[in-house]
């Protein structure tokens, strides 16, 4: 109990630090870049709940992210809903999709599950492309509400993302430390054996896909206000799918801190590469680093650290 309170306090301290940074008025670009890195902390952490803890590789991250973003677009256009509503609604809709793919795991395991999630992303993108109300293939402009609670709107969104990242990491940490995390680890290692030992595998999988989906949707919901122009190709970008699995793989998938390390390192490197070289070069780096890590350091940075300590 005391540990839980301690963790929550650390989380609150991080949010407070985020607010403090927001009042500093440094170079506005830093908030812009910081938002993207924090968004990747949420995405990587969310992916890892299913992929790292449960061992189900989800290639459909863009589907969940875009579902969050487009739910927000829909609510902005129809009822001009405030940001907290957008985030909650985006998360809930994506959680429903998560529950759906959870039931898919009944029939599909391993590779087939991953291919199905990839397919899901394309089907959803086609639906959005043909849905004129949310912009269709041409995209749609979103006007930010005037007068954010403090600072300018990007600084405000940056602070919101700090809070979301903290919540995502706390959720992941809670899952990892509880019986849910141990159950997921059991089914990751051997699903049949876990089932035989009385681990409620279906319920655990449904829980993991739903929570993972919820957090991915939450990461996408503020996206329309951040970019102010949403179109299917940017919302469904394959970059999200690659980053979502590259970041935990690089950091280490077995612990909550792994995706955070991966997201911060890779996210920062990408932002630097985008500014200094080109946006294509930054994607190239992600691909190469990802392949290098899965081949040479399968346990990620955490695994390397553990090895150094052990010997």
């Amino acid at each position, binding site marked *: 109990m005391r540990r839980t309170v301690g963790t929550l306090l650390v989380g609150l301290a991080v949010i407070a630090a985020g607010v403090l940074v927001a009042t500093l008025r440094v170079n506005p670009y830093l908030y812009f870049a910081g938002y993207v890195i924090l968004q990747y902390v949420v995405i990587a952490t969310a992916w890892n709940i299913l*992929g790292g803890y449960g*061992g189900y*590789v989800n*290639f459909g991250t863009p589907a969940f992210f875009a579902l969050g973003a487009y739910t927000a677009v829909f609510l902005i256009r129809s009822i001009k809903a405030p940001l907290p509503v957008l985030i909650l609604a985006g998360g809930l809709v994506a959680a429903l999709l998560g529950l759906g793919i959870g039931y*898919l795991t009944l*029939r*599909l395991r*391993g*590779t*087939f599950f*991953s*291919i*199905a999630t*990839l*397919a*899901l992303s*394309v*089907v959803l993108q*086609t*639906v959005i*492309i*043909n849905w004129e109300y949310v912009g269709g*293939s041409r995209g749609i402009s979103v006007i930010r509400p005037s007068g954010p609670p403090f600072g300018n709107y990007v600084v405000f969104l940056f602070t919101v993302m700090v809070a979301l990242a903290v919540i995502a990491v706390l959720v992941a940490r809670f899952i990892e430390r509880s019986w849910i995390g141990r159950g997921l680890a059991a089914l990751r290692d051997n699903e049949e054996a876990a089932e035989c030992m009385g681990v409620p595998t279906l319920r655990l999988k449904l829980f993991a896909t739903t929570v993972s989906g919820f957090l991915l949707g939450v990461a996408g919901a503020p996206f329309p206000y951040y970019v102010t122009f949403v179109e299917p190709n940017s919302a469904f970008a*394959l970059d999200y*799918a*690659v980053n979502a*699995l*590259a970041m935990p*793989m690089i950091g280490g998938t077995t612990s909550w801190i792994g995706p955070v390390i991966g997201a911060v390192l890779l996210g920062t490197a990408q932002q630097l590469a985008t500014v200094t070289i*080109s946006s*294509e*070069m930054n*994607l*190239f780096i*992600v*691909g*190469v680093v*990802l*392949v290098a890590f*899965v*081949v*040479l350091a*399968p346990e990620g940075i955490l695994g390397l650290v553990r090895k150094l300590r052990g010997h």
Partner: protein
Amino acid sequence: MFSWDLLANAVVAGLLLGGFYAAVSLGISLIFGLLDIANIAQPAFVILGAYATYVTNTAYGLDPILAGVLFTPLFYLVGAGVYRIYYGAFERRGDEALRGLVFFFGVLFIIEVSLSMKFGVDYRLVQAPYIGKSIDLGGGVGIAYRYLVPCVVGVAMTLVLYLFLGRTFYGRAIMAVSQDQLALRLMGANPVQIKTIAFGIGIAAASLAGALLISIAPVIPSTDRDYIGRMFAITVLGGMGSIGGTLLAAVILGVIESLMSTFFGPSWSLAVSFGILLAALAVRPAGLFGR
């Protein structure tokens, strides 16, 4: 207003498209269907083949199909090399499920981004005497050569692979490795060597498929994403490694897609293949002709 001409045209175009889809899916049918290696980078190798064809066609005016054939030995070697890395890093450790999949996803991404760094995101196309001409079958139905040639080559590739797997020593060894690796080892054959050969052949097929792809329509580096769903839908629907099943599933998908794009618009045709894939995976993972 329903038009029979339109329907007949759509069905003919779909049948031709099916022959081409078979060519695209053969490699993955071999690698994923028979060897059980989830090579989701296969469509990227097809696009790589398309760009190799594009370069030789624009520089030397070489016929695209011929260029595709010429590149097969090189692609075979690349494929064999990729399999060796995959085997050493994942399969030998029994770690192929999670990290192997991520590995191939990374390879797909690297190929795609490298191509867009080298060639940009403009559409690239090839020149050949038969591209742009068509035969008139009468009654308003026509066949474009740019569809006919890939279809014929695709069917020929299917036939060659079918005969190779059934009639030759190495082909039968590949079938054996897909059925029982341990038994093959006990017979004194080396499964890793056989799988290296099979993987190489699968990637070599991608080179020729790429040449067909760029003959049919202009290509950009991200075209590979359109084919991930198609390839796996065809392989799963055709029954995981059944070469005849692959051809039939490819034709079915081709006809359905062609009908969809004629009557509902081309933006829906992609969703069809993925929809069929999802349905096939959920309802009958063994496919229509499952073993």
